[in-house]
């Protein structure tokens, strides 16, 4: 009896020791995390398949579930995700990725080069009507060179190919789920490789993601059990929810409410720089705005520092180039210091001593209208009479993306953030001749052959030195030609409960929750 009990006890001790040993040997993780983080954003996601996504909110949700071959970390540095190394050909006509052999989909199957090929083939297939096909349309062929080696051949030299793969739309989706179709995947984002997996989405109410128990990279595994996203359109309702503790994180925080929020105990307000450039695009093909002197005059007429202080509450940086400083190859291209006298001089020289009348289109958010009114007042000081026309987003899009916009558009207050973090995507869609609406977003209808050729030089080579030289010249040219009134680079403002850490809004305005942990 006693021997049995002794043996039983010994067995118990040995068993516990073994258990303890394996738990400790199993890595730094103790018990699985149990915390849930609820994040309130300004709206609901639209579609959760990265291939069919346009908005940063949906990209933010997807960043927990999907990964690309390469990606941007929280500091907007390009890092390998599913790929551990890569080579861009010297002629910039192909790129080869070597996959990380540890990479796994959420169901535990290995990520192979064949999977990558099938995934991107789905993205490139025009029959799927995906909104991001155009971003990757330079890919002409995908070759599997080995079980973990995949090569993309391009139809023409494209020096910006690496940042394009880092774009959130360049995710790898498990091929077996692709057959379920775009509509299914929009609402059920499965087949990812990220630290979280999709649980459910009740449109208009919440999205829930849970920790991926099979996640392949222990270095950045989830430190919480689940994330819940709530759409809360009203900013004060978001703030109230943070103050009561219903939400652990909110984004965005309107700049005029930062001070009162900072004074609340238990709340941490964070400000980060972005790569969003804000400007007034001027139609260089119409009326007085055809004249470069007029456009430069308008730049001298607006006090940019005061704009940042008044409209953004000080939460912003100056914009000294069409490319914001956070993007690769950005330079300081010049200064249009506030000088209304010089503005009037230039206007007179251009033949408009008494100014002129024009129209400014703008979205109908409070901040947009505030900004437009500020610009209207500034330009009135030099005799330029601006009529502000606010429109809701859908109306504005329809007014812009039509072949007649070149005749009807005069000025438009807007912003742009290059999700590839590269000068090419900060310049080409906005200022290249091929980007006139309805193709892309060149609202200034800027058509400068020298500028176009500089952009092409930047794309023709993968060598950073060559690209840097081309983009520096392009930025100086665009600055001097002033197709925009260059305003500023906005800051991102978000807030969390003080005990919730690791949440960042990346420079491209995508909220990243996957690093969150609760103290």
């Amino acid at each position, binding site marked *: 009896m006693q021997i049995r009990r002794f043996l039983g006890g010994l067995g118990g001790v040995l068993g516990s020791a073994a258990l303890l040993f394996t738990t400790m040997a199993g890595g730094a993780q103790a018990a699985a995390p149990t915390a849930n983080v609820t994040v309130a954003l300004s709206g609901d996601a639209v*579609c959760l398949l990265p291939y069919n996504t346009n*908005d940063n909110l949906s990209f933010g949700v997807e960043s927990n579930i999907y990964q690309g071959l390469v990606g941007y970390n929280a500091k907007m540095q390009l890092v390998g995700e599913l790929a551990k190394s890569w080579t861009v050909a010297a002629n910039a006509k192909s790129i080869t990725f070597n996959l990380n052999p540890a990479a796994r989909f959420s169901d535990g199957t290995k990520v192979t080069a064949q999977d990558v090929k099938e995934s991107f083939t789905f993205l490139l297939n025009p029959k799927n009507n995906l*909104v991001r096909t155009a971003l990757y349309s330079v890919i002409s062929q995908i070759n599997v060179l080995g079980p973990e080696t995949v090569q993309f051949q391009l139809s023409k030299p494209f020096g910006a190919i690496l940042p394009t793969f880092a774009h959130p739309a360049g995710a790898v989706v498990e091929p077996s789920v692709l057959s379920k179709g775009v509509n299914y995947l929009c609402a059920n984002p499965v087949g990812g490789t990220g630290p979280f997996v999709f649980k459910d989405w009740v449109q208009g109410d919440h999205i829930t993601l849970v920790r991926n128990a099979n996640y392949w990279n222990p270095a950045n595994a989830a430190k919480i059990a689940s994330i819940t996203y709530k759409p*809360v359109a009203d900013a004060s309702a978001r703030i109230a929810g943070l103050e009561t503790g219903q939400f652990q994180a909110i984004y965005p925080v309107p700049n005029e409410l930062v001070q009162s929020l900072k004074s609340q105990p238990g709340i941490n307000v964070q400000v980060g720089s972005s790569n969003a450039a804000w400007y007034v695009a001027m139609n260089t093909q119409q009326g007085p705005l055809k004249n470069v002197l007029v456009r430069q005059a308008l730049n001298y007429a607006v006090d940019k520092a005061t704009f940042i202080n008044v409209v953004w509450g000080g939460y912003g940086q100056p914009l000294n180039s069409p490319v914001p400083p956070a993007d690769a190859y950005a330079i300081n291209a010049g200064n249009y210091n506030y000088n209304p006298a010089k503005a009037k001089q230039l206007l007179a020289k251009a033949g408009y001593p008494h100014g002129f009348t024009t129209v400014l289109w703008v979205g109908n958010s409070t901040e947009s209208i505030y900004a437009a009114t500020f610009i209207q007042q500034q330009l009135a000081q030099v005799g330029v009479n601006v009529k502000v026309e606010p429109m809701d*987003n*859908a109306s504005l899009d329809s007014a812009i993306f039509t072949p007649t916009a070149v005749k009807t558009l005069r000025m438009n207050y807007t912003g742009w953030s290059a999700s590839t973090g590269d000068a090419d995507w900060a310049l080409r869609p906005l200022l290249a001749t091929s980007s006139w609406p309805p193709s892309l977003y060149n609202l200034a209808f800027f058509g400068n052959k020298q500028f176009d050729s500089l952009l092409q030089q930047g794309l023709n080579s993968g060598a950073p030195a060559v690209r840097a030289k081309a983009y520096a010249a392009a930025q100086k040219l665009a600055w001097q030609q002033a197709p925009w009134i260059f305003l500023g680079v906005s800051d991102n403002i978000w807030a969390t409960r003080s005990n919730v850490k690791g949440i960042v809004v990346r420079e491209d305005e995508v909220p990243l929750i996957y690093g969150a942990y609760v103290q």
Partner: protein
Amino acid sequence: MASYLVRRVLQIIPTIIGVSILAFLFIHAIPGNPAIVMAGPNASTQTIHNLSVQFGLDRPLIEQYWYFLVNAVHGQFGTSFGDGQPVTKIIGYHFMPTVELAFFGLGLAVVIGVGAGIISAVRRNSTLDYTVMTLSMMGVSFPAFWLAMMLIALFAVRLHALPSGGDAGWTSFILPVISLGTSGAASIARFTRQSMVTTLTSDYVRTGRAKGVRESALILKHAFKNALGPIITIIGIQFGFLLGGAVVVEVVYAWPGLGNLLITSVESRNYPVIQTLLLLFSLEFILASLLVDIAYAIVNPRVRYD
């Protein structure tokens, strides 16, 4: 009565068709192309064109309307633009939250409004009456979002007594229901007082009082029952409005109801959802008005429908 009801129900069909045509034309008249909204600034013109074709937006309006009508009759209300989910599923998610809010909000409004109205009428021209009517005027005049935010600021943020929004269990109902109930109560109170004053000053009530009928019986059994006509009507109208989703209250409290859905759908020009919602709201209003007529006939047996 039965034949009247049958006729009323049959009348719903041409009314709904008429509403659906108007709603369809109205929505398509608003500037804004959903294909462009979906495609975004980075898509090619080819994608915009393909999306237009996929959703039938390039077809003539009559053809689009015809497909909508034929599908609707079969219970298919299309797929939501953007997330590709069936419209019935999306509306299904948002339906019960709005119905629950409407039910409890109206309930509170009726209890407070009718009670206050009766008391005001009985004690008319007293200080109590003036107080109640002034409060009722304030309730009607206060902007709904202001009252909602004040309630959140006090009870949720300052006192931490109640949640500030969303649907975290039964406590989440309290503030939104109070917000809705107060404005509803205000108008119901005024109508009740008005109607009660008319009946309380009528001959048969004075006769009853002279004959020694108990005051409470006079007020509740005789005067109130006869005053019910306009009161039922206003309650019915309120119910119809609330079923359409009290948009402002839903946005402030992040309540996942039909009002919120309508706003986001209009912003993104989500035609299938907007059309179906407008049809749903009209149907709800028509049914509410039918219920009002039935209730009126029950309360007042002298009313004959033929």
